[in-house]
């Protein structure tokens, strides 16, 4: 074994024996040694895209969140990636101080000793994935807000979660987590994220509608500050505001006195609430009767239509009479194959129109409802010409 005393001459004579054209070689040679401490050099190789390198260079972190049962994920501020370990039969040598050819040219030849830090056969890869959010709903259900007066009773001893708590429990990026909290209509009360009891939310909504009617404000121009500032409000300000945000949208309106913030009540979302209120816990509801009752229950001036029930309720057109039942997409599994299994268990054959609201949220980047169906369902045409989808695999 030649030690570090090896000379440039020796390396060149070896190159000559190897029949290399010395005139075509750069005159400097790098002699590679394996570090004596190689075994202690524990490193992990992580494949990143250039944008993540820039993210790290700017001083930001990537968060790794893993469970014993879950796969580990890596989160940036706005996206989630699955962490996958890949084995290779090749040897990957890590060389801290290798000179590139352009750094070697010119001058007399010299021999540089370079140390290989370690040899690896494994690296970690990242694959963009949907955040794993289902657990969020379950966690928040441990202590649902049903009104300030009930906060200290025995039904409200369940755990409450701060944003930090949720980050440590949910495999999602900050942006995705906050988006999901908004989708679940969670409200931030006294530092904790809480789901609001469905009936309690309805009472707040009804109170807002009554107040708006009483003040003769138009539904599309509710003066936010005036409503929240009313002295005899029976509901806490934070919940009134939350309810306005859930069932309306903020907008700045120009009045003669200057700009004022208003809430535009969403007809679709308000009507959707009343539909769920009627359908929840009922099972099947005669469609004709439901439509009549629903129409009569919504605030005067609002119009119901079946599109407001997308992803909330399912209509069975084949039964006589036709029936409707509560079937919210939020109650379905988040894993795609589990989701399809549940859908095909509920109904053997689906039309594109019926199934779309129940799978749209499963689409990964560049994926469409159509490509999901190609993967998980089989298309066929009924005698009447309707195209339907059924399961590709036996339903569990």
């Amino acid at each position, binding site marked *: 074994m030649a030690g570090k005393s090896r000379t440039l001459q020796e390396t060149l004579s070896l190159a000559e024996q190897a029949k290399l054209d010395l005139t075509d070689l750069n005159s400097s040679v790098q002699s590679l040694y394996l570090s004596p401490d190689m075994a202690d050099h524990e490193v992990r190789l992580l494949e990143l895209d250039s944008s993540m390198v820039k993210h790290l260079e700017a001083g930001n972190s990537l968060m790794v969140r*893993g469970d014993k049962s879950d796969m580990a994920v890596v989160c940036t501020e706005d996206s989630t990636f699955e962490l996958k370990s890949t084995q290779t039969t090749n040897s990957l040598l890590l060389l801290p101080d290798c000179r590139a050819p352009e750094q070697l040219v010119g001058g007399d030849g010299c021999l540089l000793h370079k140390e290989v830090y370690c040899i690896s056969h494994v690296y970690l890869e990242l694959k963009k994935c949907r955040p794993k959010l289902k657990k969020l709903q379950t966690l928040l259900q441990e202590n649902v807000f049903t009104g300030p007066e009930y906060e200290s009773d025995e039904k409200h001893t369940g755990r409450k979660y701060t944003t930090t*708590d949720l980050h440590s429990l949910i495999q999602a990026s900050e942006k995705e987590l906050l988006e999901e909290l908004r989708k679940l209509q969670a409200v931030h009360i006294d530092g904790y994220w809480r789901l609001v009891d469905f009936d309690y939310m309805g009472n707040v909504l009804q109170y807002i509608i009554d107040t708006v009617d009483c003040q003769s404000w138009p539904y599309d121009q509710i003066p936010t500050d005036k409503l929240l500032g009313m002295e005899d409000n029976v509901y806490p300000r934070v919940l009134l505001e939350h309810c306005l945000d859930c069932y309306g949208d903020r907008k700045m309106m120009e009045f003669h006195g200057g700009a004022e913030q208003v809430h535009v009540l969403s007809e679709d979302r308000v009507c959707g609430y009343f539909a769920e209120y009627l359908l929840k816990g009922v099972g099947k509801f005669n469609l004709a009767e439901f439509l009549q009752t629903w129409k009569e229950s919504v605030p005067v001036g609002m119009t119901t239509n079946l599109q407001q029930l997308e992803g909330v309720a399912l209509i069975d057109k084949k039964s006589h009479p036709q029936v409707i039942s509560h079937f919210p997409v939020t109650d379905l599994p988040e894993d795609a194959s589990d989701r399809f299994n549940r859908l095909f268990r509920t109904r053997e054959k689906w039309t594109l129109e019926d199934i779309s609201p129940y799978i749209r949220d499963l689409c990964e980047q560049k994926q469409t409802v159509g490509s999901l169906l190609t993967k998980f369902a089989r298309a066929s045409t009924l005698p009447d010409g309707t195209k339907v989808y059924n399961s590709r695999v036996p339903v569990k």
Partner: protein
Amino acid sequence: MVQFAIRMPQTEGGCPEWTMVELQGVLETRDSSGLPGNRLGDLHFTKGGQPILLIGHHVLHGKVVELEKPFAVLVKEKEKEKKDDSTDSMDTGESADTVTCSDYLVKAVIRNKLVFKNRPRPIINLTHKKGH
């Protein structure tokens, strides 16, 4: 759940850049001395920039490849200094079901690799025995 961060220490001159040398198969020594501390071989570059590696009595012709996706070399951060117990956090703090592991630091970024994919050519006239 286990949670930790991957960070890049903010140093002057930025994160060091390393090179990866990719060889097919596994390196072995002729004797049982093991790899650590041993000489691996000589790395030449042709004037055109092509890498040539002489290992034992083998010649390997390779090429320089710019990685489409760079690698980060991660090392576990050494035990942090004990934090003050009197943190001003009003939160319930770390939840019991969360284990906070030490963070990983980006020791280097690898943007280029030297790949030696071709079958090694033997050096025939080798007059004296090499270690490996």
